[in-house]
């Protein structure tokens, strides 16, 4: 037995072909039986009509006239397919047409004894190839007509019908398979395209996309979904690569500094006292660099945790107005140093359910960002409002602003507008802030005009 590959295309083809053949068969069977019934009933009608005719003949011409009529009937068509007999109610033959072709013809005595209406019977004689349909009917007092007709003609028609069907099947079955295969191929072509694209992506060609014709069917929906997913993967990988580059850079610089500090401390060969002083300074510099590294690693983990929404899932009722006020107060001395005017306009008594520590940190990060990028004598305006079921916090600075192409990237981990990365900070503050806003069911938006300032708007559901 040939084993076909178990693919969807093959299965679809087989289903299609089988369904086609099955319905063809059903149609034929129905037609066959319909034909058979129609032909049978026509023969029966003929026989019944004959009985009626002979009744009339017997009535007008008597037994003799009837006998003549019988002879005429059989002779006329030279009809060997037919027999006609006259019987009395006991089954005794009164008259009969030629029995050359009707050897062993017999009489159903049971039927004769209580015959009122004409009775139809089927029988098959050994000498005959085909079934015979016969009728017993009263044509006069004590005279019964036994009339039989071979079904040869009808059976031949049915046989032709069978032959036609068989021949037709020979053509139709392969045709059904062919059409099925064509339809199935067409149906799975889209799936094959998607699967090919998936294989390409697996081999690292992340920019491969499934071409879409615009027919809007399910396969195309699949292709579109797949393309969206592929695009998301591509951008995630790009983001991740950039992030890894940035992390590497951010780790390498403090390590480089630590290395330089230690090396220069070791190479100093002056007198003991100045060496001791040198070592002490080297140690404290190293400590500072280590702290920076530790903080970088911790913050990276915090952002990852906040983004995954797993960390600090302890929630409580938080007075966000108070939290914002405290955060503003924290930056007061810093603002004074830089002569920055900090003007908070906070609607008091706004509460929301959330994680206090993360919300504090979100606010501090945004304020820190504003302070960092606002020049001396600048302004930072903080506004907190509540409308309906939302709390909106706006932190606007008069800093250098963010160039348009970078605006959507400021929330990315390790992103810094200043590519030299000379500014203090690790580029994680805004990522953390956004992650927190999102885990609280809100979000942060940035609106910025370069060289005029930036406004961060936090929306939190109350």
């Amino acid at each position, binding site marked *: 037995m040939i084993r076909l590959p178990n693919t969807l295309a093959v299965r679809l083809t087989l289903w299609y072909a089988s369904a086609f053949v099955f319905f063809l068969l059903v149609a034929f069977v129905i037609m066959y039986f319909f034909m058979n019934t129609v032909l049978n009933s026509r023969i029966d009608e003929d026989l019944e009509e004959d009985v009626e005719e002979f009744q009339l003949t017997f009535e007008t011409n008597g037994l003799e006239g009837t006998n003549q009529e019988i002879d005429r009937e059989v002779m006329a068509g030279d009809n060997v397919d037919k027999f006609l007999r006259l019987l009395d109610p006991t089954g005794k033959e009164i008259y009969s047409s030629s029995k050359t072709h009707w050897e062993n013809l017999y009489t159903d005595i049971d039927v004769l004894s209580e015959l009122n209406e004409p009775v139809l019977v089927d029988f098959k004689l050994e000498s005959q190839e085909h079934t015979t349909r016969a009728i017993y009917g009263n044509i006069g007092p004590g005279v019964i007509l036994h009339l039989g007709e071979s079904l040869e003609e009808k059976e031949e028609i049915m046989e032709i019908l069978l032959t036609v069907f068989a021949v037709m099947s020979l053509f139709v079955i392969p045709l059904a398979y062919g059409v099925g295969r064509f339809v199935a191929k067409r149906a799975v072509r889209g799936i094959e395209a998607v699967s090919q694209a998936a294989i390409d992506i697996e081999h690292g060609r992340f920019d491969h996309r499934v071409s879409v014709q615009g027919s809007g069917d399910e396969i195309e929906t699949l292709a579109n979904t797949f393309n969206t997913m592929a695009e998301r993967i591509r951008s995630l990988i790009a983001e991740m690569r950039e992030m890894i580059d940035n992390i590497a850079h951010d780790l390498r610089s403090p390590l480089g500094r630590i290395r330089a500090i230690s090396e220069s401390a070791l190479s100093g060969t002056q007198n003991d006292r100045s060496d001791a002083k040198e070592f002490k300074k080297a140690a404290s510099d190293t400590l500072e660099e280590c702290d920076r590294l530790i903080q970088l690693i911790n913050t990276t983990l915090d952002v990852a945790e906040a983004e995954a929404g797993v960390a600090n899932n302890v929630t409580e009722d938080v007075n966000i107005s108070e939290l914002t006020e405290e955060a503003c107060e924290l930056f007061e*001395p810093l603002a004074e140093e830089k002569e920055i005017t900090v003007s908070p306009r906070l609607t008091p008594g706004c509460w929301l359910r959330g994680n206090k520590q993360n919300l504090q940190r979100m606010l501090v990060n945004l304020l820190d960002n504003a*302070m960092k990028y606002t020049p001396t004598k600048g302004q930072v305006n903080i506004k907190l409002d509540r409308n309906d079921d939302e709390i909106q916090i706006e932190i606007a600075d008069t800093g250098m602003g963010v160039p348009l192409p970078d605006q959507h990237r400021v929330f990315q981990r390790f992103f810094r507008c200043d590519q030299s990365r000379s500014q*203090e900070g690790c580029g994680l503050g805004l990522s953390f802030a956004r992650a927190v806003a999102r885990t609280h069911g809100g979000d942060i938006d940035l609106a910025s005009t370069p060289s005029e300032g930036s406004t961060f708007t936090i929306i939190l559901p109350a």
Partner: protein
Amino acid sequence: MRILLIEDDSVIADFITKGMKQAGFAIDHMEDGITGLHAALDGVYDLAIVDLMLPRLDGLKVIDRVREKKINIPIIVLSAKRTVDERVDGLQHGADDYLTKPFSFSELLARVEALLRRSSNTVEPTSVSIRDLTLDLLARTAERAGKKIDLQPKEFSLLEYLIRNAGHVVSKTMIMERVWDYNFDPGTNVVEARISKLREKIDKGFDLPLINTVRGLGYVINK
């Protein structure tokens, strides 16, 4: 005062042992959970510092056994894991404080002293002073050499915290935690700015500055 240290990392253990001895404590070091537990059950220690990832017996189990035996010495947990769940877990097992590695020694020392102070049940003072500077904790006023100093509430709390820890360096993290109730480092120099503001108020016009910066560690008011 006698401290028990259960820690398998010898570098960290040496670092703590050396520091604690310098700070005037007696300290014993055990390298694994089992010997550590036996030592703790001796009952001669005033405080225990327990690392969580220990050979032979896990740190949390050590704490469980110690608490089962009704030994109520203060315990500080050290761990490289830093999620809040871990912290809560440690505290629920009966630890009194939790410190994430890496940590600065001054931070550990401050926490040790705070726990020992707490367990010795000293009565809360109504005023603290250092040299010629006095803080009235009830009226929340400050005076240096008889001259009243105007302080903002946070400045007052910061100064109080520094004076209470006089002689010990307090880190920026500790200041953020205790004075602002922020359990994270805001990154920029908000503490520095606040300290320099405070300095201006209390040290300006005096020959001897009270608040000193210890580079890489934090701030200290010397006794």
